[in-house]
């Protein structure tokens, strides 16, 4: 009886693991800010750190072939903050079984940067921007449908003159223009 119960328990764990695998996204992403707060009438830097599951790749923002769906970071502007610039990393040139020529793709950890313009009269408090990271992932022999990772950018606005603390220098050092 004890062995039956243990077996049942192990099977239930296996079931949960399989179920989780079914809904695990190929790309996960999070947002970090360059400073602990931002000033009105300034440019705030944020980074989106995307993690592409092992064995998969997503397309470069400027894909090698016309038919490929590019990776894109989209943030919805508000009255308090608008997107000034988005910086995508340079893709890696990789060969795949399904393509005669190498393709420029992102694999592993991908860091994108965005400069946000904070409006002049924004009072102290929290500012939130919604957005998404759009991508289309493939492995060497199959592709998944285009998908989005929803993103939320929370910025703490403080009065001009309040000193800002710099954060995540290692992440922002990785951001390089293509």
């Amino acid at each position, binding site marked *: 009886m004890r062995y039956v119960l243990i077996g049942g328990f192990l099977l239930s764990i296996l079931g949960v693991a399989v179920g989780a695998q079914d*809904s695990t996204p190929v790309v996960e992403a999070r947002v970090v800010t360059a400073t602990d707060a931002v000033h009105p009438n300034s440019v705030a830097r944020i980074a989106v750190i995307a993690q592409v599951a092992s064995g998969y790749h997503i397309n470069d923002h400027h894909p090698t072939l016309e038919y490929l769906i590019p990776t894109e970071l989209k943030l919805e502007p508000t009255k308090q903050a608008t997107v000034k610039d988005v910086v995508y990393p340079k893709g890696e040139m990789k060969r795949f079984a399904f393509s005669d020529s190498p393709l420029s793709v992102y694999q592993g950890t991908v860091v994108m940067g965005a400069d946000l313009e904070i409006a002049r009269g924004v009072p102290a408090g929290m500012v939130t921007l*919604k957005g998404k990271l759009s991508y289309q992932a*493939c492995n060497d*022999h199959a592709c998944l449908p285009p998908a989005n990772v929803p993103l939320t950018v929370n910025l703490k606005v403080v009065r001009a003159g309040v000193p800002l603390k710099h954060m995540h220098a290692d992440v922002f050092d990785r951001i390089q223009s293509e």
Partner: protein
Amino acid sequence: MIEERKEASLENNEIPTNAESPPPPKKASAAKLLAGAALAVAFVVGIYYVNLLWIAPAVMSQTQAKGSAQHPLAPDFTLTDISGKRFNLSDYRGKVVMLDFWATWCGPCRIEIPGFIALQNRYGNEGLAVIGISMDDGPQPVVEFYKQFRMNYPVAMGSEKLGELYGGIIGLPTTFLIGRDGRIYAKHEGATDIAVFEDEIKQLLGENSTAESTNFKQVGQMVSNDKIELGNPAEINSEVPGVDISKLTAAQKTTFEKHLEGIQCTCGCNYNLLKCRQVDRACGVSRRMARDELAKFLKTHV
């Protein structure tokens, strides 16, 4: 308290002992052992013959009548191809159908297409019909691709719902091989060697159209668990996609849908649960949440 529990538990697990010593074990005689062994052998032989003469034939005849779970009937559908011609899958009964779910943005799909064109040329007269189901968002790139690659078989625009009927198309390409009898014999996920398809097509072309093939041998790797699983129409056609609410009355359905509208989906979509199910059928988070809510609803309302 813990100590007390431990003691109680130990007491419960104790082997009961008597003040008197237990009776000595009886020695089994050789004759009794032999008789027992003979009975056991007779029992096993009996079970074997009962299975051979009654159970197996009954299961076999039932399988032949309904079709085996291994080769399920391909769900029928009606679509209009990109040239404007309407067709049903059932129109192709009697032919071997190669049903290819693909997209123009999918490199592994594109590399297979010239091979499919060649197979259609080579085996079309013998009864092969290749059908392409594009999972692109719109027809424009598909029409351009069709012309550029001089495709020689019908291509229609698919949908998530159609994919769900075929068990959910998670990765592209996904290709089904359907026999002359309308049953699915193979499902290949990902780019597959054209020789694998050719071998399997030749096998299916050699079968007659009425009986289920029992000789079909899968050549290449099919799917991870080697099972062809189709979607549940009650879940696919539900007002809450992915959740079977067919057992609810009309009033209960309305109540349940309103209940889902009051719950926020946690997938990050910013929709309520019902809206997320309707907008994003593939969302695993809202599907699981809505199914959990249905289970609770059934306990309290039905």
